């Protein structure tokens, strides 16, 4: 621990220099923490907006147009997979909303409100009226309601796939979070949809699911495809249907990694050069310590300890700076909150310390090789 003591003393004797190195590390790590959390939160936000309130895995019948017979074994399989957070049987059909001479296409989803809420979050998204899905109810999106001058309590006439006409009553208007959904999505009771599609009990057009980690959708879908209970069905999942989005997220990630890597390199170069200067400044002291019998590796460790002390202090301050930036950003831009990614914060801290240690390798090697005679002779 003598090396540590000497390192601490050396640092304290040059407070400005030590402060500058620590500040350099702090800025680098602060940027890491902020940028990393920002990008991750942005992506999570984007993914959430894309698939947060929609099915991530969907089971339909293998033959298009056929219903899915939801058997108890299928239901068992779904409840056993704990990656599946919710599975909702739905009856979907297309309809046309008719108002005077105008026809507006609608995607109608039939189901139980409680179950539908676990995916579409309808009840929480209601902007007018009260979420209710029984009898002749229909819940519509806010853009659709606005375009057609509909409000809760109004009657709406739908032309069904087989040409029949059905009169419904708007119970609620909701904001589904995306323009397309707000213009075309509508929800009706499961029973009504069953009548429209002429389906029996236990027959649905699809089973829609959400999974605990959205990026596990592929694995979950694969598991279902391999399950004999799901023979005769077709399983789709959001990732294979959103390749472009995923590619965009990936390239955003890689450009963010590139920026972060260059920040770290700049920090490393800064620490390395300052530590090298410090090592030169302390050459005399190191020579004297060696003349008194301090061995080479112990003398070399002095600069390793200096780097460790600077790295830990700088990285800790950097984490604080990064978190402060996150709070500040979240206050200023109220529409979007950055969540600090704790695992990322921990990694950034460790990387900061590691970069500092790596930067000290050259000065500590120099120090361990220094011959005391060089110092003693030069006086």
């Amino acid at each position, binding site marked *: 621990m*003598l090396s540590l003591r000497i390192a601490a003393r050396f640092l304290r004797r040059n407070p400005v220099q030590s402060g500058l190195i620590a500040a350099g590390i702090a800025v680098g790590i602060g940027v890491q923490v902020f940028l990393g959390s920002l990008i991750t939160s942005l992506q999570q936000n984007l993914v959430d907006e894309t698939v947060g309130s929609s099915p991530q895995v969907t089971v339909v019948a293998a033959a298009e147009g056929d219903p899915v017979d939801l058997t108890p074994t299928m239901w068992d399989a779904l409840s056993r997979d704990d990656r599946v957070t919710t599975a909702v049987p739905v009856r979907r059909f297309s309809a046309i909303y008719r108002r005077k001479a105008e026809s507006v296409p609608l995607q109608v989803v039939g189901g139980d409100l409680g179950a539908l809420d676990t995916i579409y979050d309808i009840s929480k998204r209601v902007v007018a009226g009260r979420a209710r899905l029984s009898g002749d109810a229909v819940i519509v999106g806010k853009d659709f309601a606005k375009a057609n001058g509909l409000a809760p309590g109004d009657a709406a006439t739908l032309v069904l796939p087989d040409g029949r006409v059905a009169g419904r009553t708007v119970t609620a208007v909701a904001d589904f979070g995306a323009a397309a959904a707000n213009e075309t999505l509508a929800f009706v009771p499961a029973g009504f949809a069953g009548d429209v599609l002429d389906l029996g009990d236990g027959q649905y057009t699809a089973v829609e699911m959400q999974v605990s980690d959205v990026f596990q959708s592929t694995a979950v879908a694969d598991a279902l495809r391999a399950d004999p209970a799901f023979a005769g069905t077709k399983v789709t999942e959001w990732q294979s249907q959103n390749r472009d989005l995923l590619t965009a997220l990936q390239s955003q990630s890689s450009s963010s990694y590139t920026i972060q890597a260059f920040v770290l390199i700049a920090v490393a170069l800064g620490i390395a050069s300052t530590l090298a200067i410090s090592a030169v400044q302390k050459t005399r002291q190191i020579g004297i310590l060696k*003349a008194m019998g301090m061995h*080479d590796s112990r003398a070399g460790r002095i600069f390793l300890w200096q780097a460790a002390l600077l790295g830990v202090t700088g990285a800790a301050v950097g984490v604080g700076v990064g978190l402060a930036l996150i709070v500040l950003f979240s206050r200023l831009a109220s529409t979007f909150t950055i969540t600090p990614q704790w695992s990322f914060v921990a990694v950034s801290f460790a990387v900061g310390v590691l970069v500092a240690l790596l930067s000290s390798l050259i000065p500590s090697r120099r120090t361990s090789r220094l011959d005391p005679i060089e110092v003693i002779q030069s006086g």
Partner: protein
Amino acid sequence: MAEHLLVADGLGKTYGDVVKTTALSDVTFSVERGEFASVIGQSGSGKSTLLNLIGLLDTPTTGQVLVDGRETAALGRRGRARLRNELLGFVFQFHHLLPEFSVVENVLMPGLIAGRDARRSRVRAEEVLALLGLEGLEDKNANELSGGQKQRVAIGRALLNEPALVLADEPTGNLDTANTARVYELFRKVNAELGTGFLIVTHDRSVAQQTDRILEISDGRLVQDVRNTYAAPAP
């Protein structure tokens, strides 16, 4: 028969790869425990070179240095560092104190390097400082002392690990007459009281006259090695 404390066996040193300067050639002598000896010679004659070689700070071009009968070349850098710490004490013309540390910390540093208990080393350092008449200066920074005080702190540091031999290279070269006299009195006192050996490099014949043995170096060769019966023993 006990081994010699230190043996210089045919020591030679040539500096430089292109322009070669032979600073020392074929110097042979031995030093016993408790000796009070001096090395004298003109400036540039090779005294410092010799002292650095037997102090294991530098490696000879020819010959070898034996400590307690052991070849030091075979010990490696680490082994020689350990011998410097445990067996030798150094006092140079420049005090070479560590400006980052207080007086007492400077003095106890060789104890910490040896891995001794910090508390005990501190007690020992305070004793040494008292012996050197430096009480009350323990917690001052080394930079705040006068030249004479600094050199006495350096002597204290050299004595901390109770070395068998103190190597002093013109230790009073930067001091006035009063401080010079004081340093040699101290050396004598430590030699008499603790039995610490001294090998003092000087170009001042009157200083050498006060030691028990005078080794004279001229042009890199040992030209004389005499007992000095006139030296005044410590009172």
